[in-house]
C-alpha cells in the first residue's frame, strides 16, 4: 500500500497538536460529556446554542497551525529582526536590570501571573501584601500619603489626575494647564481625554501660567522635566492653591530618592511610571504607573486601593478598599472607567525596592547621576552646551539641527539611540545599565571621533550630589520589609512565602464568569522575556523593530479575520480602555459627518460597569435599556429608546453573548434598530471566547468591538493586570483609529491617543501571537465549542442543586452561566458564604453577585478537563448539602462551616475548638483536599472595619504580631 504524497509528508512532519494541550477534555471525555447532555456531537450542541442566523458558516482564514516548538522558532526569526540598541532616549522609558531572582520567580512564574484581581482577599494575601509594599514605596518616595495599586501607564495616570482635579476643585473652573516640558505622549493623551469632557487644555511654559485668567482647576508639571531639567517649584503649589487649582506632578521614582518629594513641594497628586524599577521597556509596555494623592482626595482616587483590615480572628489582613469608587459599583459616576491595573508589574517594581532597599536605590540613583555629570563634563570639554540647570539623569544638548542630526546618526552607527528634539538639540537619558564605555561611545558620537580623555578622568572632577535646594533630606522606605530581604536567599524565600498565600491556576480552576481564566500556555509566555522583545525603547526608530512590526501585522490581520472587521488598533491597554477608544472612534465618525449632537449611548442594565463609565468619559450621555425576565435585552424598550433619541442617538454598547451568559436571538434586530436611528453599535468583547470561529462581531451587526486579549487570547491576568484591549472596526471607522504624537500609527483622521505607547503593551502581544499560531482556525473553533460544552456540562450537573438563572431558547447556556443563591437568604446564608466556603475545598469562587446580586457566575473555559469540572461540581454539591443542614435546622447559620469559612490552619489546630462540626469537616471537607491542601492564610476579612478605618500603607510592625 502506498501513501498519497500528503500522507507521506504528514508522516514526517512534526505534530501541530497544541490544541490538545490547550483544550482540557480529550476526545473520550468530550464524548461522555456530550452524552450527559443528550447531544450527539459538538456541532449539534453549537446548533442548539448559537442562533442560526448569525453562525459563521465558513472556516476562519488563518495560517495552518504550527507545533509549539515550530511556532517559537518562527517567532524567534521575527524577533531576530529587532535590533537591540542601547537606548538613551528617556521620555519616561529607561533601560534597567530586572534582578534575576525577580525575573524567574515573579515575571516568569505562573504562581504570580495566572491569578485574577484579588477580590477574594483571603486567598490573595500574598499579592495584596506585595501591592501594599508598592503603595508604601510610592507614598514614601512621592511624599504623599495615599497611593493606589497602579494604573495603566504614565500618560493615562495624568489623564486620571486631570479628572480628579476637576472633581475636587470648586465649580466654574474648566481649564487645565500642562507644562510644555511634560513628555509629549502625556500632553497628547491629556488633550484627547479633555476634549469630550469639555475641559480646556492650555499647553505652555510654566512661567506663562495665568491661574485666574485661564480659570484653571489644575496644573500638570513634569519633575524632572522631559528634557531633564529640575525646576525649582518652591512656592508654586501655594500659588496654585491660592487660585483654587490643584498641582499635579509627573515624576520619576529613581530621581525622587535624591530629590525633594512632590509632597514636600505641596503637590496634590504625584504620578509617573514605575518601569525603571526592574521592568523591561518592552517596546512600550506593560509597565505600572503610580498615582499618589492627599488623604482628603481618597474618594476621588482612580484605580484599586489595597488596605489593611482585620480578619474574624482579629488578625491584620489585606483587602481591596473603597471599592465603591470603582466602576463595578458606581458605573457612570465612577472615578475612572479602568478596571484592569498593572498588578504584575507593580509587584515587580515593589520587589525591586524590597530587594535593593533604600540604600541600594539611593546608590543606583547616585551612580546614574554621577554618570550624567561625567557626560555633561565631557560634553562641555568638547565645547557643547550641555545646560547649566540642575538635572538628575537626562541632558539636553543645544546644537544646530545639522550638527544634532550628525550626532544622532553617528551614535546610531555605534548602536546607540539618542533623543532628537524638533529644534535640533539632542537628548541623552542615562540609567542603571549605563557603563563607562557607553559614555565613551556617547562622547565620541558628539565629538565625531576619539576624545582625548576618559570618563574615569572626568569622574574625579564632578560633584556627586544633587544641589540644594533640590536635595532630598527626609528618609524613606524605613519599614522593615524594605530592609530585610537584601540577600538572595532571603528574597527568594520572601517571594515564595507570599506566593504560597495566593490561590492561582497552578492549584485549581478559577471559574470566574466573564473573566475567562483559560490556560496561559508556557510556550506562549516564553517569548515575553526574550531580550529582543524586552530591551526595545518604544520610540526607537521603526527600522530597529521590524520583528515587532511583522508580529503586529500578523496579529492585526488575524484579529480582523476573527472579528470580521477591516482594521485593528493594538493601542488600548485594557478592556475598558478599548471601550473608551472604540467609543471615541464612533464619536470622531459622527463629528466628521457634522453630527456633533449624536451623544446618547444606550446601555443595557445588565452591562458591565465599565460600559457606562467609559461612555461618560468619551462624552456620551448614558440611557439605560431594560432587560426582560429571561435576562435578554428588552427589544421593545430598546426600540422605544432608540426612537425617542433618534436625533441624538450616538451608539449602543452591547455585550455578546450577553453578560447573562446567553446567545440572544434578537441581536441582529437590536443592531438594526440602532442603525436605523442613526447610531453605531459597540460590541463589548468580554465574552468573545464564545464567538471565535462560530460567529463574529461584524456578522451580528456591530461596527466596532474590543478584544480582551487577557481573556480570549491567553494573556495571563497577572493578578489584576497587565491586560490588552485592542479594538477592531468596520472600514468606515478605520480612518479614526487612535494615533500617536511621536510614532506613525492609527488612522489618517485619528482623534488622538489613548495610551502612552503607540502599540500599548507591545511585549505581551507575543502571547496571543503564539496562541493563534499554534491553534489555527480549527483549533480556535474547537476551543470555543469546548468552552460551550464545558459550561453546559457543569450547568447540567449543578442544575438539580442550584437553579440556573438564565438559559437560551433551547435551554442551553453559552460559555458561562449563573447559579442562583438568593433562595438561601431565608436560612441566613449569603452567596459570599458559599464563595468563602469554596476556599476550604481548594477553589476560587465564581464571580459573585454580578451581573445579578445574590448569584454566582461560572465560566469554566475550554482549558479545564472533565476531571477538574467534576471536582468543582462535587465541591458545589457538597456545599449545597451544608446549606441544607442550615435550612433544615440541623445547624445554626452562624455556627455553620459556611459562615465560619474559610478555615485557617491556625483555627483548626488551636487547642480550643468550640464549633458544632469537626475540625476535619472544617478544613478537609473533600477527599482531594486531604491529598493537597491549599490553606487560606487568614480567616474571613472584615470589610466594614477596613473601609471605616482606611489604612493603605504597610502597617507598623507591632500591628503584625499577635
Amino acid at each position, binding site marked *: 500500500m502506498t501513501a498519497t504524497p500528503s500522507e507521506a509528508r504528514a508522516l514526517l512532519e512534526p505534530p501541530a497538536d497544541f490544541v490538545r494541550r490547550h483544550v482540557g477534555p480529550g476526545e473520550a471525555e468530550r464524548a461522555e460529556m456530550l452524552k450527559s447532555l443528550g447531544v450527539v456531537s459538538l456541532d449539534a450542541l453549537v446548533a442548539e446554542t448559537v442562533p442560526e442566523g448569525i453562525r459563521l458558516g465558513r472556516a476562519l482564514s488563518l495560517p495552518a497551525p504550527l507545533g509549539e516548538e515550530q511556532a517559537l522558532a518562527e517567532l524567534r526569526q521575527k524577533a531576530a529582526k529587532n535590533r537591540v540598541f542601547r537606548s538613551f532616549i528617556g521620555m519616561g522609558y529607561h533601560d534597567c536590570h530586572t534582578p534575576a531572582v525577580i525575573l524567574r520567580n515573579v515575571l516568569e512564574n505562573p504562581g504570580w501571573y495566572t491569578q485574577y484581581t484579588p477580590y477574594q482577599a483571603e486567598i490573595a494575601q500574598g499579592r495584596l501584601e506585595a501591592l501594599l509594599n508598592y503603595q508604601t514605596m510610592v507614598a514614601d518616595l512621592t511624599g504623599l500619603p495615599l497611593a493606589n495599586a497602579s494604573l495603566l501607564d504614565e500618560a493615562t495616570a495624568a489623564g486620571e489626575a486631570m479628572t480628579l482635579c476637576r472633581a475636587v476643585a470648586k465649580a466654574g473652573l474648566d481649564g487645565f494647564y500642562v507644562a510644555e516640558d511634560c513628555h509629549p505622549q502625556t500632553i497628547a493623551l491629556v488633550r484627547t481625554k479633555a476634549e469630550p469632557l469639555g475641559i480646556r487644555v492650555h499647553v505652555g511654559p510654566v512661567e506663562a501660567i495665568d491661574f485666574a485668567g485661564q480659570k484653571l482647576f489644575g496644573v500638570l508639571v513634569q519633575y524632572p522635566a522631559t528634557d531633564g531639567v529640575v525646576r525649582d517649584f518652591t512656592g508654586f503649589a501655594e500659588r496654585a492653591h491660592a487660585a483654587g487649582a490643584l498641582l499635579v506632578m509627573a515624576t520619576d521614582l529613581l530621581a525622587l530618592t535624591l530629590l525633594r518629594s512632590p509632597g514636600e513641594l505641596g503637590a496634590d497628586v504625584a504620578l509617573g511610571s514605575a518601569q525603571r524599577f526592574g521592568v523591561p521597556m518592552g517596546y512600550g509596555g506593560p509597565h505600572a504607573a503610580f498615582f499618589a494623592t492627599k488623604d482628603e482626595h481618597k474618594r476621588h482616587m482612580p484605580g484599586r486601593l489595597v488596605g489593611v483590615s482585620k480578619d474574624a480572628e482579629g488578625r491584620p489582613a489585606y483587602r481591596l478598599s473603597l471599592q465603591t469608587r470603582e466602576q463595578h459599583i458606581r458605573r457612570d459616576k465612577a472615578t475612572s472607567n479602568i478596571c484592569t491595573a498593572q498588578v504584575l508589574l507593580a509587584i515587580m517594581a515593589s520587589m525591586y525596592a524590597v530587594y535593593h532597599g533604600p540604600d541600594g536605590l539611593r546608590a543606583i540613583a547616585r551612580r546614574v547621576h554621577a554618570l550624567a555629570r561625567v557626560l555633561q563634563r565631557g560634553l562641555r570639554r568638547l565645547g557643547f552646551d550641555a545646560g547649566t540647570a540642575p538635572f538628575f539623569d537626562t541632558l539636553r544638548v543645544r546644537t544646530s539641527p545639522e550638527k544634532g542630526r550628525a550626532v544622532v546618526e553617528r551614535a546610531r552607527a555605534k548602536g546607540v539611540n539618542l533623543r532628537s528634539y524638533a529644534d535640533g538639540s539632542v537628548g541623552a537619558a542615562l540609567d542603571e545599565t549605563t557603563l563607562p564605555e557607553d559614555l565613551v561611545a556617547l562622547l565620541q558620537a558628539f565629538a565625531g571621533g576619539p576624545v582625548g580623555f576618559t570618563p574615569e578622568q572626568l569622574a574625579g572632577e564632578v560633584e556627586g550630589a544633587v544641589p540644594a535646594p533640590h536635595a532630598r533630606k527626609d528618609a524613606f522606605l524605613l519599614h522593615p520589609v524594605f530592609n530585610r530581604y537584601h540577600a538572595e536567599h532571603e528574597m527568594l524565600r520572601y517571594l515564595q512565602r507570599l506566593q504560597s498565600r495566593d490561590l492561582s491556576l497552578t492549584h485549581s480552576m478559577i471559574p470566574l464568569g466573564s473573566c475567562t481564566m483559560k490556560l496561559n500556555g508556557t510556550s506562549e509566555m516564553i517569548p515575553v522575556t526574550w531580550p529582543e522583545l524586552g530591551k526595545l525603547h518604544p520610540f526607537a526608530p521603526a527600522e530597529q523593530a521590524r520583528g515587532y512590526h511583522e508580529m503586529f501585522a500578523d496579529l492585526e490581520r488575524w484579529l480582523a479575520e476573527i472579528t470580521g472587521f477591516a482594521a485593528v488598533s493594538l493601542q488600548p491597554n485594557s478592556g475598558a480602555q478599548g471601550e473608551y477608544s472604540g467609543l471615541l472612534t464612533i464619536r470622531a465618525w459622527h463629528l466628521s459627518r457634522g453630527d456633533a449632537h449624536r451623544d446618547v449611548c444606550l446601555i443595557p442594565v445588565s452591562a458591565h460597569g465599565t460600559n457606562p463609565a467609559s461612555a461618560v468619559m468619551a462624552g456620551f450621555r448614558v440611557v439605560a435599556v431594560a432587560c426582560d425576565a429571561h435576562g435578554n435585552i428588552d427589544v421593545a424598550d430598546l426600540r422605544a429608546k432608540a426612537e425617542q433619541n433618534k436625533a441624538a442617538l450616538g451608539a449602543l454598547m452591547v455585550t455578546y453573548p450577553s453578560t447573562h451568559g446567553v446567545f440572544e436571538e434578537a441581536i441582529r434586530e437590536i443592531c438594526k434598530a440602532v442603525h436605523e436611528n442613526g447610531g453605531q453599535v459597540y460590541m463589548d468583547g468580554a465574552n468573545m471566547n464564545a464567538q471565535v470561529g462560530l460567529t463574529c462581531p461584524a456578522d451580528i451587526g456591530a461596527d466596532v468591538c474590543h478584544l480582551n486579549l487577557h481573556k480570549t487570547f491567553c494573556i495571563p491576568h497577572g493578578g489584576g493586570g497587565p491586560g490588552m484591549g485592542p479594538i477592531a472596526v468596520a472600514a468606515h471607522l478605520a480612518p479614526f483609529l487612535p494615533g500617536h504624537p511621536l510614532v506613525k500609527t492609527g488612522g489618517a483622521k485619528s482623534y488622538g491617543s489613548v495610551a502612552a505607547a503607540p502599540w500599548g503593551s507591545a511585549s505581551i502581544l507575543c502571547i496571543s501571537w503564539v496562541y493563534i499560531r499554534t491553534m489555527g482556525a480549527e483549533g480556535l473553533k474547537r476551543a470555543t465549542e469546548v468552552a460551550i460544552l464545558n459550561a453546559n456540562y457543569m450547568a447540567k450537573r449543578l442544575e438539580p442543586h442550584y437553579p440556573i438563572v438564565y438559559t437560551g431558547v433551547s435551554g442551553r447556556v453559552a460559555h458561562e452561566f449563573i447559579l442562583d443563591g438568593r433562595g438561601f437568604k431565608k436560612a441566613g446564608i449569603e452567596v459570599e458564604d458559599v464563595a468563602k466556603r469554596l476556599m476550604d475545598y481548594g477553589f476560587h469562587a465564581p464571580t459573585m453577585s454580578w451581573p445579578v446580586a445574590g448569584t454566582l457566575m461560572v465560566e469554566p473555559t475550554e482549558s479545564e478537563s472533565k476531571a477538574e469540572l467534576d471536582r468543582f461540581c462535587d465541591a458545589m454539591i457538597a456545599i449545597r448539602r451544608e446549606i441544607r443542614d442550615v435550612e433544615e435546622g440541623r445547624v445554626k447559620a452562624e455556627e455553620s462551616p459556611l459562615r465560619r469559612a474559610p478555615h485557617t490552619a491556625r483555627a483548626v489546630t488551636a487547642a480550643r475548638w468550640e464549633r458544632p462540626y469537626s475540625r476535619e469537616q472544617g478544613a478537609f471537607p473533600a477527599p482531594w483536599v486531604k491529598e493537597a491542601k491549599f490553606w487560606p492564610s487568614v480567616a474571613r476579612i472584615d470589610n466594614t472595619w477596613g*473601609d471605616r478605618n482606611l489604612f493603605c500603607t504597610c502597617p507598623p510592625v507591632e500591628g503584625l504580631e499577635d
Partner: protein
Amino acid sequence: MYPQDFRYAKDHEWIKVEGDHGRVGITDYAQKQLGDVVFLELPEVGRSLKAGEQFGTVESVKAVSELYSPIGGEVVEVNAALVSKPETINKDPHGQAWMIVLKITDPAEAGALMDAAAYEALVASEAK
C-alpha cells in the same frame, strides 16, 4: 415601624416637619439595602436645595447612594456627629441618624410626599 409623623420620598428619605423647619434622614429600609454604612458626605450649612436635588452621598462597603432632598429649602443645620460616626445610620435611622435640617421653602411640598402607610406599601412592593 415607620413613624406616623414623618413624610416619605420615593428615594427613601424621610422628613419630619417641625414648624417651618424639616429634619431629613434616610429610612430603615434604605439603611438595610445599603448594609454597613462606612461614609457619609453632607452639604454645608447655608446651601439652598430644590426638591429632588442631591445633598450628599452615603456609602457602604458594597454600595454608594446619592441623597436627595425630599423638599426644597435652605440647609440650616447639619449633623456633624453623624459624619464622624456614620454607622449610627444602621442603628437608629429614624432618630439619631438625622442628616440635615431644612428651612422649608414651600410647606405644600411636604404634603405631597407619602405618609407612613403609603411608604410601607412602597417598601412592600419593592421588597418583592
